């Protein structure tokens, strides 16, 4: 098997430069590439365009890179509660492009798949469609959207093998598989790295061909954004 293992997060992030466009997996704080984000902060690469569904919280996730003003453009579907993000956006320091979540996912998928453009009904008739080609198919209007063009993709999986094959867990899967192979270099960090041949070939979510570098993250905080529980007697469905 072709080996994709790198020693650590430092090697994994080699080549990330100022001004680059990055794809980052995760939904909220769930399934985000924690170790890569920490390393990007240490590297202090700047003027980044970050494409990710959300922008983290003030002191975790992409919020860490916002704190140090390393992001100049953020492309997301929902930016949530993040005071520093709001400040930078309102002051004009941060360029923000909000796009529909399904379009975000499909633009990743298109980049992975060599599909340069596709039509989607999402956003037709709204400001999202402004300046874009619209076209009717089957009596319904659609908007032409393009594949992303990114330099690095940072994803986080549950298990991975040395050949780069990945398995995700629960809803930490989200955008991660779609971003694999959607940039020039895809870096996967995993909670557990196993030898190639260990994973069931039938149960792998993303084949190693989409991954250039893989490493086992040194530590995962896996912070919960909205802890919600129920009591024993409350039977919410």
């Amino acid at each position: 098997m072709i080996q994709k293992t790198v020693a650590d997060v430092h090697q994994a992030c080699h080549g990330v430069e100022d001004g680059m466009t990055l794809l980052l997996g995760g939904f909220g704080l769930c399934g985000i590439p924690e170790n890569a984000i920490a390393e990007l902060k240490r590297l202090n690469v700047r003027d980044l365009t970050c494409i990710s569904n959300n922008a983290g919280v003030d002191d975790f996730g992409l919020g860490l890179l916002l704190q140090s003003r390393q992001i100049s453009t953020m492309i997301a579907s929902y930016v949530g509660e993040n005071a520093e993000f709001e400040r930078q956006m309102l002051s004009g320091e941060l360029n923000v492009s909000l796009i529909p979540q399904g379009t975000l996912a499909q633009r990743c998928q298109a980049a992975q798949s060599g599909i340069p453009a596709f039509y989607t009904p999402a956003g037709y008739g709204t400001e999202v469609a402004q300046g874009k080609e619209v076209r009717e198919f089957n009596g319904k209007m659609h908007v032409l959207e393009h594949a992303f063009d990114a330099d690095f993709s940072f994803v986080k999986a549950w298990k991975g093998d040395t050949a780069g094959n990945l398995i995700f867990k629960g809803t930490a899967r989200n955008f991660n598989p779609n971003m694999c192979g959607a940039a020039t270099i895809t870096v996967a960090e995993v909670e557990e790295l196993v030898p190639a041949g260990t994973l069931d070939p039938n149960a792998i979510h993303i084949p190693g061909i989409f991954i250039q570098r893989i490493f086992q993250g040194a530590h995962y905080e896996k912070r919960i954004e909205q802890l919600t529980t129920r009591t024993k007697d409350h039977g919410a469905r």
Partner: protein
Amino acid sequence: MGLDKYQIAQRIAQEVKDGYYVNLGIGIPTLVANFVRQDIDVEFQSENGILGMGPFPFEGDEDADLINAGKQTITALPGAVFFDSAMSFSMIRGRHVDLTILGAMEVAQNGDIANWKIPGKMVKGMGGAMDLVASAERIIVAMTHTNKAGASKLLEACTLPLTGVGCVKKIVTDLAVIEVRNNAFHLVERAPGVSVAEIEAATEGQLIITGPVPEMIL
């Protein structure tokens, strides 16, 4: 006078039929799950990648890798399945999800909906709402009939930036159940104790009333 948010959710739950896959938006829609009849089979989809979403976990059982689209910790029912975001929106865009329930700031009598942006205010983003409203065959809006300033949210035309065009078919508010068709609001039911006149007064867009309007049964 008028329904509280739990009662709005309770009324909307009556629209959820056996065999439906349902996507619930944040806020009142989330509450709908609590009121769906227990004798029918319904599955809740959350667009971050789960079908067969269960209730919140018991304290201590929460899993950082198991959340809903509102980023809340949840559980998975037996028979649930996890998937990636592209597949999630294949379900939505491909019209495999049967019913979408979401909140709104404004709905127009032509079915336009605005629920994501107020110019001059901090914008959080549309999340999956634009995909949902552009694709779903059945969309129910859950909202109060008027805003905090008392102005109608059922308008001749939306004033806020749109989320989708001509897509809303039904609205359940604290005052009424309204159907949207032929470029008008049609009053179908009124909340217990709320008069037709009150609903008319709270509706800015064209409201069609045909015959006596029954009270909701909750």
